[in-house]
């Protein structure tokens, strides 16, 4: 039997098949990103120490330490509360990073100041957000292809190369290129772009260790792509699950936070 199909119907079916195929691919790309998110951070609230070492032209320049309290909200975004532990000039300062609500508290002035998403990036505490961001919640992912790239330890990794476009108001970056190891879903590398398409940061995830109930990256190398002589190594140290009440994520709690 010969099944004759008219040309227009063929085109429509072809387009539908292509769209279906694209949707399937997009869904799987989103799932890859979501699986990788789960590798980086757990779903339960937790507390961890975070140490940042800044380098200028390869030389250690400064050191910051934080205690970070993090909790995922119902929509898959992390709410973060950080206190500076070091350097001594910043000890005791606190930052609330919660969706579109950002507050900075300085115990010297006992003042809480509201800051914008952009102003948050002027301080090191913003790295807390970079590390806990659930990319699947804020970005729409598509699969660019597969590549074999070196990880931070120069070991070859077969990766999915994903292209992420900001899909929510609170996405910090406009676009992210993301490499996730096939099979393990471990994040290997990310490239973060501004609204104007400028490459701002390159992040390598490394030192996968048992932490908060799974094997997760304990370190991220954050390279400033605007001034490539600048880089920051962030290390997530002592971590434990801890109840973090919703009441903590408001400005009036900031002066009351105790990290003991």
């Amino acid at each position, binding site marked *: 039997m010969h099944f004759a199909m008219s040309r227009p119907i063929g085109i429509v079916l072809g387009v539908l098949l292509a769209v279906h195929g694209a949707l399937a691919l997009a869904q799987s790309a989103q799932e890859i990103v979501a699986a990788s998110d789960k590798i980086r951070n757990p779903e339960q609230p937790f507390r961890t120490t975070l140490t940042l070492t800044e380098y200028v032209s390869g030389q250690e320049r400064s050191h910051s330490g934080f205690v970070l309290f993090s909790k995922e909200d119902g929509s898959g975004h992390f709410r973060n509360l950080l206190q500076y532990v070091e350097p001594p000039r910043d000890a005791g300062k606190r930052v609330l990073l919660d969706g579109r609500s950002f507050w900075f508290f300085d115990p010297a002035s006992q003042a809480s100041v509201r800051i914008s998403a952009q102003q948050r990036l002027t301080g090191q505490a913003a790295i807390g957000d970079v590390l806990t961001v659930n990319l699947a919640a804020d970005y729409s992912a598509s699969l660019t292809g597969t590549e074999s790239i070196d990880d931070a330890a120069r070991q070859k990794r077969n990766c999915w190369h994903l292209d992420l476009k900001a899909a929510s108001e609170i996405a910090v970056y406009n676009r992210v290129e993301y490499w996730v190891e096939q099979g393990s879903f471990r994040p290997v590398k990310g490239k973060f772009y501004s609204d104007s398409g400028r490459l701002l940061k390159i992040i390598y995830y490394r030192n996968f260790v048992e932490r908060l109930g799974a094997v997760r990256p304990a370190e991220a190398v954050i390279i400033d792509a605007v001034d490539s002589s600048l880089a920051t190594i962030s290390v997530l140290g002592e971590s434990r699950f801890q109840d973090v*009440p919703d009441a903590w994520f408001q400005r009036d709690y900031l002066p009351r936070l105790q990290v003991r």
Partner: protein
Amino acid sequence: MKGWGLALATLAFAGMALAADEDKDLDLIPGQPSRPEKSDAPKSGSLFGGEGRLFVENALTSTAVRNDLLVPFPPPLPPRWEERFFGDARIEWPLASNAHVAYSGRLSFVAQEGLGFPNRGNVTNDLREVYASIEPQPRNYFDAGRINVKSGVALGFNPTDFFKTRAVVDPLTTDPSVLREDRLGTLMIRGQHVGEASSLTVAYAPRVTNPSPVAVDPYRGFNPLWGRTNGTERWLVKASAQLGEGVNPELLAYWESGKWQLGANIAESVGQSTVVYLEWSGGRQLGIAEQALAFARTTGTIPSDAPSVFMQGNNERFRSQVAVGASYTTESKITFNLEYHYNGAGFSRSDWDRWFAAGEGRPDSSPIVRGLWYIRDYAAGQQEPMQRNSVFVRADWVDAFVPKLELTAFALVDAGDGSTRWQVEADYAKTDLWSFGVLAAGTTGGRHSNYGSLPSEASVLLKVTRYF
């Protein structure tokens, strides 16, 4: 078929080339490969058994003084040089898992023109805070002692910051956003409940002594200056609620000497880079000149039946104070603040004209001149603008030109006469422990203007700070 093969080969080559490009990024990774065995917990140093911040600073200031003032400044003039070395500490000691005591203070060694050496004025101790805090139930707090209670969301002027009055002593900067860092707390008891998305605070500050005169005694030594912070009985009730994502308004009611003032403040993000904010307070008040006169009589600075040298002519009535503004941060880490300030008790243009007319041509020893400058000293102590309308602009550039260099500049402009108080500061964090700074400040304007009639024309401050 040949064409497909070529295309696939090209794509494969392109993929390899791209991956090779990616691998070049590895050259930007500093230091050695990670060492998992290394201890990476942040080190929080112990300060006398507690936690907090301790630093010493040396600040050398040189000031240029105007000598052509329309209304002469009664002696002594501001010192033309000052050398100040101080230790500054803010420490919390845990008493239990739900209780701690806190101390905050500054011990200064001062030498300045006209002060003399050695004498009691060379050493001063500012006891900013000392209090105990307990959390008997989760997120219910009770505090007692000298506490610095701060309210407000604006940068240049905080109408709802009711405990700011007379709390600043010997400032090293005129930047209003920094002035609150070195100010005295108030002896009080305070209770606070922090709910799921709301907070309620009640504070009571008793009157423990008579209010002290406006002028700060340079020979005060270790005097805790209770007369500046607890010369009257005061109550504060404030409540805030999380109404939506990030919308967190605060309402305040403040009582002092039988008078209520109400206040509100709110700050909201607009887009990625902007925050807008509004702060208001209002209550029955005298004009600033009448307030100063009443205070001078209360403190015995002038006899209770002495006539006023200057009156604004306004009776007690409902007056508002407002600060409304916005901040904007650029991708290059510069944050700009632009604010409009309104002080319903402040001087109008005609008040200024009469102030100058009352004092012009008189000698600096004249009681009228002293009275006129007393009003301005009183207003400065209140941490409120003397003028009715002003515009505040501030820029803060983090990592300016080089990492860890912070440049800050502000201008406070009297909208009535265009005169300006300004300041430019550069602060360089050379290491995690050492900072170096230079600060230039001044006032500009005609002789017949608010800021142009102040005795200090310009000053330069050099400072070195060591943190521990």
